[in-house]
């Protein structure tokens, strides 16, 4: 189905004639409902404007509530008022045109030049705001009309809607221009001159900026709601319109009664206020109109503006059906391309079956089913929706014919979109296949957590069911999880093993571990491997090789110590991975090989064998790892960070030594013996040297602790394999937490003017402990003062995160807005769709997709050379 397209939308200003033409009635009374609760004729709820109450019929079109979308009415304003939104251009026009003849205050040749420039910029799609400013500057400065020779007076514009003519600048004599005067002046401006002010005479006449008729939106735009008490509560717009009509009527009455000029002027002013706030209730310079409760009214501009306004809240983002949301929890047993859906949700959501000759029988069977993937609704060819219940099931199955739609409950194998907010990149919405499971949470393989940035501490996710075959096909082909294993951000894998997956494989493949047949079979139980060579003993590397596709690759593992000269195959740390033809010969499998963001193996498999194989590898790899870690057992407890007494002593000494050296530095500073670093003051130098000294002390303490913890320690295993945590975390747990900082400096501020951080220290103490150095470890516990310092450092981290999310969110919104219309054309150029501007002649200078690129490189030459040489050798 190819939809009709709207080709363009033209914007212009409504003329008074237009407003009257589209109006169905003139509104004259401020009353809305009569005593019986019926809308008053000529009032704001007039049934000619459409209806909202069920039962009533629209007097214009005869439609009931919901059928009639409403009709405009109008108010004849007793006196003209300025439209606030156009006050600025009115100011420009008044000071730019002759007060007598209405012509622009520059010569025709000059005007034509400006008009030409504006046209030129318009055709280029560039901003011509600068030209308009120049015209304004020139015309404002003119003292005399070049056309009729009349002297000009300066116009003073007082925000938001008042205009004055300065008669004598010295005596400060000025005269207020009434909207009526202004309208008369604007009427005199000829069409030809308008172009120079940036106005299109085909779309607008300047006098329309001064309102004489006010359009009244249909009732459906401002529906009243009935409170629980039975009282009617009107919409803010209605309230405002009531105000306008009331003042308008009073103005007319007073004028007819011959009231004094002053009273009329005050009423005029009041009318202006109400119309202004009706259009925009946040105009600076006037108090916003308020509801009886004191809440400012939400008028026209407020409805459109801002995040929850019409544009961003209702038009750019829309509400959807066929969606579900619940808490997520992990399930390593399902594939990464699947999602576990609770039965309750599966019974609620539906997928349409479009009945044709070919699936008629199948559709019939679905209708007749009494348990889970049942049909919940049937849509007849005429569009009528019928709920399938026990009593009409057989009848509907009987009547079923091609052209009908059967809405079937969600079931295993259906494709759905799965999403976690914030949706920062396209991997935040991916397509999964449904697995209907018991209990009430969505289940998801932990290996897909990185792209969603999800964890299971209470995160919720959303699920959407595509409803057309096109959408389902696109979801399967473009949005499926395996299509997003490589990230377009850097051309590397973003889905891969995390936490236990890495630890498990590390335990399996490290060194030459031997496993019995029984163990090997247990590891591989959940994995899709059907045949393994019969042996009594398998090495871990052999077992891992069973799930490896036939790849050949060599690389340094995460556990690599970074020796000066790499011994490659002969690495004594087993950190050089060698895989030949799908057999792991040397090296340890860890984060570098299979981890999310790093996963060299995943990358290689993806490129060589494609998405499906890579998906299968990730599934097998994670299951194998879980099998291994479950069998071998892996745990961490508080005594894992125990270090022997001699280590504690060594650490104590190191820190004491560092503190001594800090004292020395401070003494040198006080004695004036400290040599400043180039371009730094002595104080700054001191701070930097102390920070350096203490940082070094912590590192040394960490090294000592690390030495005694050994490579068998669970926490160390996690840190070196890249599964979780770092050596720094371990250092802080076992040895010393180290310097706390705020804004990159040691803690300096305390209670005002005391020159110390807390009262435990002497004023101006610059020593390590007085400025936030925490020498305890998390395990040994912090002293009260240390605890305080630690909290100060920790607080900064929290504030930082809070500020950062809002800032980066706005940055991203701006970037998306600036770049969203860019597209690669069939000729390889990148163009902006609205203006057609060519932004790049070849995307990224080489036309290569970053996702398919090898970590940014357009072709992985080394791999191809390796492959070809391998083939040639064979």
């Amino acid at each position, binding site marked *: 189905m190819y*939809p009709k397209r*709207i080709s363009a939308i033209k*914007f*212009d200003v409504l003329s008074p004639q237009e407003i009257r033409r589209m109006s169905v009635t003139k509104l004259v009374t401020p009353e809305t409902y009569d005593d019986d609760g019926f809308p008053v004729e000529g009032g704001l709820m007039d049934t000619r404007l459409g209806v909202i109450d069920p039962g009533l019929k629209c007097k214009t079109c005869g439609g009931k509530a919901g059928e009639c979308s409403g009709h405009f009415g109008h108010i004849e304003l007793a006196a003209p008022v300025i439209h606030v*939104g156009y006050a600025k*251009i009115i100011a420009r026009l008044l000071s730019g045109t002759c007060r007598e003849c209405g012509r622009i205050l520059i010569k025709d040749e000059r005007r034509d030049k400006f008009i030409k420039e504006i046209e030129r910029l318009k055709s280029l*799609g*560039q*901003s011509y705001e600068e030209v308009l400013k120049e015209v304004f500057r020139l015309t404002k400065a003119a003292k005399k009309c070049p056309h009729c020779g009349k002297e000009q007076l300066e116009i003073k514009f007082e925000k938001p809607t008042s205009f004055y003519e300065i008669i004598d600048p010295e005596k400060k004599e000025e005269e207020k221009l009434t909207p009526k005067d202004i309208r008369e002046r604007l009427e005199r401006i000829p069409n030809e001159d308008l172009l120079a002010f*940036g*106005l*299109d005479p085909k779309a607008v006449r300047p006098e329309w900026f001064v309102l004489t008729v006010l359009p009244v939106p249909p009732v459906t735009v401002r529906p009243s709601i009935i409170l629980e008490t039975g009282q009617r509560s009107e919409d803010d717009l209605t309230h405002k319109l009531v105000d306008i009509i009331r003042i308008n009527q009073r103005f007319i009455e007073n004028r007819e009664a011959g009231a004094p000029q002053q009273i009329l002027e005050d009423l005029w002013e009041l009318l202006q206020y109400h119309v202004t706030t009706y259009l925009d209730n946040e105009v600076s310079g006037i108090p916003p109109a308020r509801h009886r409760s004191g809440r400012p009214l939400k008028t026209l501009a407020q409805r459109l*503006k801002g995040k929850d306004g019409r*544009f961003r809240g209702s*038009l750019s983002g829309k509400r959807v059906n066929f969606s579900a949301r619940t808490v997520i929890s992990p399930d390593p047993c399902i594939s990464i391309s699947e999602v576990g859906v609770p039965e309750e949700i599966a019974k609620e959501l539906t997928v349409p079956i479009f009945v044709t000759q070919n699936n008629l029988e199948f559709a019939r069977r679905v209708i007749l089913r009494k348990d889970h993937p049942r049909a919940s609704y049937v849509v007849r060819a005429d569009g009528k929706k019928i709920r399938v219940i026990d009593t009409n099931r057989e009848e509907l199955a009987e009547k079923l014919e091609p052209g009908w739609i059967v809405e079937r409950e969600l079931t295993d194998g259906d494709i759905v979109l799965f999403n976690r907010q914030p949706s*920062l990149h396209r991997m935040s919405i991916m397509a999964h296949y449904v697995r209907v499971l018991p209990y009430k949470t969505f289940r998801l393989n932990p290996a897909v957590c990185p792209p969603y940035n999800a964890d299971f501490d209470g995160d919720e996710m959303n699920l959407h069911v595509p409803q057309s075959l096109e959408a389902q096909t696109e979801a399967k082909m*473009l949005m499926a999880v395996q299509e997003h294993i490589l990230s377009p*951000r*850097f*051309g590397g894998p973003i889905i891969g093993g995390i936490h236990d997956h890495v630890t498990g494989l590390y335990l399996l493949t490290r060194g030459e571990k031997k496993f019995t047949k029984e163990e090997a079979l247990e590891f591989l139980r959940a994995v899709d491997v059907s045949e393994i060579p019969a042996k009594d003993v398998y090495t871990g590397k052999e077992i891992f090789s069973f799930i490896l596709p036939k790849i050949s690759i060599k690389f340094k593992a995460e556990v690599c110590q970074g020796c000066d000269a790499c011994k490659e195959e002969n690495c004594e740390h087993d950190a050089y991975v060698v895989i030949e033809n799908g057999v792991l010969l040397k090296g340890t499998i860890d984060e570098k090989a299979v981890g999310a963001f790093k996963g060299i193996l995943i990358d290689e498999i993806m490129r060589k064998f494609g998405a499906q194989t890579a998906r299968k590898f990730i599934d097998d790899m994670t299951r194998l790892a879980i099998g291994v870690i479950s069998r071998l057992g892996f745990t961490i407890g508080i005594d894992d960070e125990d270090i022997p007494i001699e280590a504690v002593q060594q650490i104590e000494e190191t820190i004491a030594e560092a503190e001594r050296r800090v004292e020395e530095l401070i003494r040198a500073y006080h004695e004036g013996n400290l040599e400043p*670093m180039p*371009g*730094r003051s002595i104080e700054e130098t001191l701070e930097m040297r102390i920070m350096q000294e203490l940082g070094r002390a912590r590192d040394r303490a960490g090294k000592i602790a690390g030495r005694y913890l050994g490579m068998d320690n669970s926490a160390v295993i996690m840190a070196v394999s890249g599964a979780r945590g770092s050596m720094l975390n371990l250092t802080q747990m076992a040895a010393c937490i180290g310097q706390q900082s705020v804004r990159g400096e040691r803690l300096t501020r305390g209670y005002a003017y005391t020159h110390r951080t807390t009262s435990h220290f002497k004023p101006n103490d610059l020593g390590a402990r007085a400025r936030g150095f925490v020498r305890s470890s998390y395990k040994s516990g912090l002293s009260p003062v240390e605890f305080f310092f630690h909290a100060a450092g920790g607080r900064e981290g929290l504030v*930082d995160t809070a*500020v*950062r999310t809002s*800032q*980066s969110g706005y*940055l*991203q919104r701006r970037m998306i*807005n*600036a770049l*969203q*219309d*860019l*597209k*690669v*054309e069939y000729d*390889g150029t990148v163009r*902006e*769709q609205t203006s057609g501007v060519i*932004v*790049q002649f070849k*995307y*990224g*200078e*080489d036309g*290569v*997709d*970053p996702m398919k690129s090898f970590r*940014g490189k*357009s*072709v*992985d*030459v*080394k791999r*191809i*050379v390796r492959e*070809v040489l391998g083939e*040639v050798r064979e």
Partner: protein
Amino acid sequence: MSYEQLLEQYPFPQSIKEEIKEELEKLKVKKNVAKKIIERCYQAYLANLIEPGEAVGIVAAQSVGEPGTQMTMRTFHYAGVAELNVTLGLPRLIEILDVRKNPSTPMMTIYLEKEIAKDREKAREVANKIEATYLRDLADIEVDLREMKILIKPDEEALRRKGLSLDELKDKIDKSIKDDFEQEGEFLVVKIREQSYKHLMDVFEKLRDMVVMGIKEIKRVIIRKEGEEYVLYTEGSSLKKVMKVKGVDFSRTLTNDIYEIYEVLGIEAARSAIIREALSTLEEQGLEVDVRHIMLLADVMTADGELRQIGRHGVAGEKQSILARAAFEMTVNNLLEAAMRGEIDYLRGITENIIIGQPIRLGTGDVELIAKLGGMKK
């Protein structure tokens, strides 16, 4: 046939050609093998090309924006040069995309001409010519309120360090103030013309803030040895003035002030400056982002020959579509203006089509050829 000639037959981008050539030369493979490798590389290249219709802009924006949440907010010491504070992380990225005219920490990296680059003394000389030296750094300045005069006591040691003679100093002072002064012993005494305290203090302040030598904008210069040669790092930036300083190799000299590069060297230089600065900001935070995304960002910002910021005063604000502008920021203003200018929205972009509820023209929505399935008829 050499490897080069073989490569000539394929329309590769230059960078790939060079890499293949390098690999082939390293291995010295036979011709037929080389041919096979090149052919295979070409196939891989074709397979890696971007698909028409791809929403490269959105992907670029996401790729730069997503890691933004992982960036730090603080100013840090510039990698390697501990003496300089440079804005890094998210604030710096925002600064780059906003095209701020006054970046919070302007900085220059100045390379010297080959002949003098290895000479510490010469480097020091150039640095002296660049670093702003105030009179207050070279002399003690005092006001004698009773006698209505200002006493300047030059610090000979400081003068020597800056390579300035006393006469040169006098000359400079003479040029900058109108009042008379003469030498009295070790003092230079300024006798003011007008007998008012206000004038006295004005002259005093002027003297104190007087730049005797160097470039006003550059507050500090740090000399560092990098490999063989000496490199100057500065706090503050003035590309135009530094370019004119003798001994500076301005073809290698850099500044982190993008707007200044745009003004002095033009739009293409600004484009590469944006790419360089954005990339190094991300890299420094340990975030991997493909250059192509940043290139696209820089190209959009520089596409019409002027530097445009990402935001309402730049790219997003100059959108052709009224609806797209209204949906971004300043909704009401955009609609009112569009009406008085009689603008037309041709609904070619993304937001517009979302707003009115029709398929967007991107990716699979960009296809115009539709197959009607004949068998579908009843």
